[in-house]
């Protein structure tokens, strides 16, 4: 296999949280040794519950936050060593909330042109590329003079996608791109992303807490728990035969539309994960329904893409 489109090596982020004037500062390990790589044209889904570090990971990959350790390489180039223009040509984001990701004071045309302007592209070329890009995301170029407040949530997200793709980046990083949208609009946006991914040969990172969405769009899936990837596998394999107990719990927690079933019991107990106080050994053991004595003592090694003692035994 050739070099992967994007390679994430031992990425780590620690925050220092001060507690009052005399309190001892605590370290919060939001992202803890994440290693991932994605071949060109593939889509990686990252799933996990709220607060597991998904969005911090997204910000680290984009370089919006400086990493405490580790590196992100796109086509062999370390993103943190590139200047802002070169980095922008390699990786672009689509954010969750299309209401806060578009500047309300700028027109649609200006918003989509913004990355080109930042690259120093001349006026006339900018206009034609913006019009072309708007058409590709299903927005009439006539709407370029409108403002975000005049658009629906789905249209706004199309604009956000147009802005991300107008530079023809190699990597598209989508951080929960559909979770702020109506269910009826979600599938439109997902299909648009799938189409664009094929036609532009994009490599995509797709972060979501919605398992159904990830199953629909991702080739491989990484499951994140307390800042760490606990299982990584082909999408079909992961959903058919989840190996890590946390993955199984996540899959069990999906609500079904069938009446009478109620809220599923996932057997995780009431303890909530706290990234400022990560348990020793396997970080999942306090909530794990099948934990054994060894789990609280040793960090589990990764076996076939999953980090669990029971698999290696």
């Amino acid at each position: 296999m050739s070099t992967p489109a994007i390679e994430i090596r031992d990425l780590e982020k620690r925050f220092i949280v001060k507690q009052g004037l005399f309190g001892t500062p605590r370290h919060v390990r939001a992202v803890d040794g994440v290693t991932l790589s994605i071949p060109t044209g593939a889509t990686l889904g990252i799933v996990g519950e709220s607060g597991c570090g998904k969005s911090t990971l997204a910000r680290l990959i984009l370089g919006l936050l400086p990493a405490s350790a580790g590196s992100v390489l796109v086509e062999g180039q370390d993103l943190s060593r590139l200047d802002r223009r070169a980095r922008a040509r390699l990786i672009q984001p689509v954010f969750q909330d299309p209401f806060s990701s578009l500047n309300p004071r700028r027109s649609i045309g200006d918003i989509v042109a913004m990355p080109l302007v930042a690259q120093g592209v001349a006026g006339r070329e900018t206009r034609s590329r913006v019009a072309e890009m708007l058409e590709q995301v299903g927005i009439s170029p006539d709407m370029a003079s409108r403002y975000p407040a005049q658009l629906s949530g789905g249209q706004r997200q199309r604009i956000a996608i147009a802005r991300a793709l107008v530079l023809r980046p190699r990597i598209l990083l989508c951080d929960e791109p559909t979770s702020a949208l109506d269910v009826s609009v979600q599938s439109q946006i997902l299909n648009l992303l799938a189409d664009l991914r094929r036609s532009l040969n994009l490599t995509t990172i797709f972060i979501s807490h919605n398992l159904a969405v990830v199953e629909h769009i991702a080739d491989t899936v990484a499951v994140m728990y307390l800042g760490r990837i606990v299982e990584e596998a082909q999408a079909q394999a992961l959903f058919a035969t989840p190996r890590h107990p946390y993955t199984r719990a996540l899959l069990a927690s999906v609500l079904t539309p069938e009446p009478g079933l109620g809220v599923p019991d996932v057997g995780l107990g009431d303890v909530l994960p706290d990234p400022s106080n990560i348990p020793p050994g396997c970080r999942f053991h306090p909530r794990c329904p099948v934990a054994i004595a060894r789990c609280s003592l040793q960090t589990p090694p990764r076996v076939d893409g999953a980090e669990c003692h029971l698999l290696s035994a």
Partner: protein
Amino acid sequence: MRRSGIWIGGAILTLVVLAGVFAPWIAPHDPYAQDLTRRLAVPFWMEGALPEHLLGTDQLGRDYLSRLIFGARVSLIIGAMVVVVSGAIGITLGVLGGFFGGRVDDVVLFLITCRLSIPVVLVALAVVGLLGSSTTLVVAVLGLLLWDRFAVVARATTMQVRNLDYVAAAWAAGSSTPRILISEVLPNIMTHLAVVGTLEMALAILLEAALSFLGLGVPPPLPSWGLMIAEGRDFMFFSAWVIWIPGIALFTLVLAINLLGDGLRDLFGAAPS
């Protein structure tokens, strides 16, 4: 009812601005022309008023209406210039502190605290007293002293905008920091700053009048409303209008600017963005 303030304030302010801009054409007399035979003529609603002096004359026989109209110029120019100078200082400091945080913000906060601990009127009096009175000096002193509210509001609003995704998107798109500040942050905090601008303008006009009243503002014979009140002080027992005509003008203008500011604040506060 809630919208009436913005209209009333806007209408009065527009009238005063028009009067100030077209002062040479609408003023019936030269505001500097003295006529010692017609000193302290009474305004039109009093017994024995002179038809050519609608609002009477002052102690040197100068037409009061003309001086009032030219005085609007002084008030507005000083108010506007002070807002420009203090706005430039305050917005720059506030945006930098709010956007970068950390050390930069510490310095900005320190400067704001320093500024807040300086008594404006005292320093203005001392500086003008030392260097002599002139319009430029009044603008410079007030401009350098009234930026604190701009800085506080710019800092707070920038901190909110800084964390929004469109700023992150602009950063990820390769925009430079100055470009992010100018085209992403500034346009989105401008509405809040406009409200501060009206408050500061009203305050600057009042302070200019106060300084002029003390003889440390604009130099005579320039027709400033504060100076007119000061000059009429000795005659107020027998010719009270020489004080309260410019007094009412000052009150009306400041009230109009404040009404406009309140109206703008309500308008922007109600808007979704």
